[in-house]
């Protein structure tokens, strides 16, 4: 099975204190530590497992600037066979639809049976997978938390539904799936994997290679524009408990008792 996994380089929320920039248009991006979006790791792991079970290959693709190459390489060290970076000045400032457009062009250059994305990104809106499927006119399932290959035309996927329920679906290939965390346990990258990809050249495809008119993507093509970015003020009724761990626990228990949460 030929699988394409879309991955994104995001600020690592466990490593950074995220601050909003002076003009309130974005976060302060200087000096941030970046890593691969957590959800995407699960998608790559799932793809590697499918390949190991039924054969085929896994390609990792990312839309981003030259620094995004490091996450593509990292996911290749994890076990993906190929990597592609989609990078062009014209791509900067794309909205979700623009990103989906760029990815669609890359998908059409290959012969993929399955395209996986993470269910969402730390800094995203969870929209690219669905849009990409619609643009390709491929079937789509979101929030996938189990996956089983039936044959070379069909797969079976489990989806997480609110209320703790699950549903199972059969989907025709080719299709797009957005993968939920918990579907597997992503492997750690070992040294052998790193050494294997150390000197591999990762191809970079720009607008020209993909046959995309620059105006259709990037800032000029974006129909969704961010107009403000801020931390909301604390609302009424919210209370941050302060003190040592023991003090916080004590206060929390008092509160829960007072409000009838525990008896």
């Amino acid at each position, binding site marked *: 099975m030929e699988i394409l996994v879309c991955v994104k380089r995001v600020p690592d929320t*466990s*490593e*950074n*204190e995220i601050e909003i920039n002076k003009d309130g248009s974005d976060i302060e991006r*200087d*000096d941030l*530590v970046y*890593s691969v979006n957590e959800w995407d790791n699960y998608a790559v792991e799932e793809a590697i497992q499918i390949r190991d079970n039924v054969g085929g290959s896994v390609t990792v693709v990312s839309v981003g600037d030259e620094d995004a190459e*490091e996450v593509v*390489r*990292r996911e290749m*060290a994890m076990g993906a066979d190929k990597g592609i970076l989609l990078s062009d000045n014209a791509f900067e400032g794309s909205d979700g639809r623009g990103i989906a457009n760029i990815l669609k062009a890359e998908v059409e250059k290959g012969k993929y049976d399955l395209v996986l994305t993470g269910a969402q990104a730390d800094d995203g809106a969870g929209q690219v997978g669905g849009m990409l499927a619609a643009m390709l006119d491929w079937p789509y399932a979101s929030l996938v938390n189990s996956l089983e290959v039936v044959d070379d035309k069909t797969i079976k996927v489990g989806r997480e539904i609110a209320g703790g329920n699950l549903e199972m679906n059969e989907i025709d290939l080719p299709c797009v799936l957005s993968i939920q965390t918990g579907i597997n346990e992503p*492997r*750690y*990258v*070992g*040294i*052998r994997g*790193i*050494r294997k990809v*150390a*000197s591999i050249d990762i191809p970079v495809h720009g607008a020209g290679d993909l046959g995309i008119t620059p105006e259709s993507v990037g800032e000029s093509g974006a129909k969704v524009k961010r107009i403000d970015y801020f931390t909301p003020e604390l609302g009424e009724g919210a209370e941050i408990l302060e003190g*040592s*761990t023991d003090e916080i626990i004590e206060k929390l228990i008092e509160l829960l008792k007072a409000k009838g949460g525990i008896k």
Partner: protein
Amino acid sequence: MAQFIADRRDIEFVLHEQLQVEKLSKHERFAEFNKKTVDMIVNEARNLAVKEILPTQLLGDQEGCKFENGKVTVPESFHRAYEIIKEGEWVAMPESLEWGGQGMPMVVSLAASDYLVGANYAFMMYPGLTQGAGKLIEAFGTDKQKELFLKKMFTGEWTGTMLLTEPEAGSDVGALTTSAVKNSDGTYSISGSKIFISSGEHDLAENIIHPVLARIEGAPAGTKGISLFLVPKIWVNDDGSLGEFNDVVCTGIEEKMGIHGNVTCSISLGGKGECKGTLLGEENKGMRAMFLMMNEARLLVGLQGFTCASTAYMYAVNYARQRLQGKHLLKMRDENAPSVPIIQHPDVRRQLITMKAYVEGMRSLIYYVGMCEDNVKVEKSAKEKEKYQGIIDVLIPIAKGYVTDKAFEVCNHGLQIYGGYGYIKEYPLEQLVRDCRITMIYEGTNGIQAMDLLGRKLGLNKGKPVMDLLGEMQASIAAAREIEDLKELADLVQEAVNKLGEVGLHMGASAMSPDVMKAFAFAYPFMEVTGDIVMAWMLLWRATVAAHKLEKGARKKDAAFYEGQLKSAEFFVHSILPTTMGKCNAILTTNGAAVEIMEDSFGG
């Protein structure tokens, strides 16, 4: 966001800006270790350390190792962590590819270990000792021994130990009594009792390979009659399959002050007369083999102590930023003044900058020694190889003895910053202080390290290694002098280096004179002042790099980091180095009270 274990920026700084490890990739041997690869290795080590190993640190301390019916079990959480270390092939990073290692530069493996060991060094001793034992086999084993054992060890499938110590043979290894008798098939029957064996018995791996020091029947007394043997827990047949249990019995485990997760065993060899081993290297050359391995083992113990200090600093600085207590000193009389984070109090800042300066200096020193090891491997001329080897030899007692002493002090400062909370088990400093303490004792006590510096290293090759080291220091000082703002610091470090030269000459002469006893009573202070001056050198070197970066313009966070480098150097040179100069004067006086006092006068 609070960082754990080690400051990511500082590791990057030492690797790429101070030591410029990428230079190593110009040599064929390390060609694949370009900056991208190095960064990925260090990042993944960090990822693994923070997510999988750090959570085992407290669990390992609380649960400890258990000894029941002759079996040892390690803390439950160690099993998963060990599997991940094995799968990722982190066991033998700098070892040869041929035998399952990763052929990595030592300096890069030290950076990865900065995180892995820092996350839980009691746990990392299982793979760490395995690597060390494997190295012995690689250096001294026959092809057959390598074939049977090495790959399984470097890949972590089997683990390794080192059986030296006996009840009456601790610092004096030459007093050991474990015996070996040659059998007709070429193997040796081993019998004796060993104690204090780290990772000596456990349930992490199927087999445990013990390099054992023993005396062949009729061999000379003392260190000249010691041979090294390879004794597996389960005998390994010629075809590599496992044979019978080899009469290697754990008779008990120690209850220790710290590193509860790493088991410390008493081991009886051949209690039933059925323990066999094969000779590793040549008869009676066991101590020579030990010496060859000693530098690396001591560097790793230095790293263990150091990572406790690094972790302690990370915890302490984050705690000091969050903990509100007391008013700002300048608003003491204002009853309505709010409590401030304790990082604003001068005495807390003094402790924090002390910790910071030592942690930075020690990281640079340890990585630098690793880089020298790599240079020995890649340098083409014998002269250069010899130069780097000499510098390593001189710096090892500092990287072990001085570093672990100061690491313990740093942990202590960290505990103090936590106040009463530092003393209770709910907070992490109490464990770090306990865990760190053993690093000052094992792998040659720090007193032994000081004697090594004075007795062996100072006069090595007629003092050339010491002169080479001083030459490296001079080069850094000259580079610092080029920067206007660092001139004063450079001059003060120069004075200290000159003083060290004077002290070195004096100590060398005293050790060869009738005053030898007095000289050795000052071996330890000599190691301490040497270490202080090495710290000053490293911090000045860092400040020089940082000053250049600031001059070129740096981003906000980077600028704060570089300014921090200048302050570490300034603090150390102005606040610690003056006491070093005083200690140098005390050494030059070489007062004899310590050796002249009558034993009865000690009282008690």
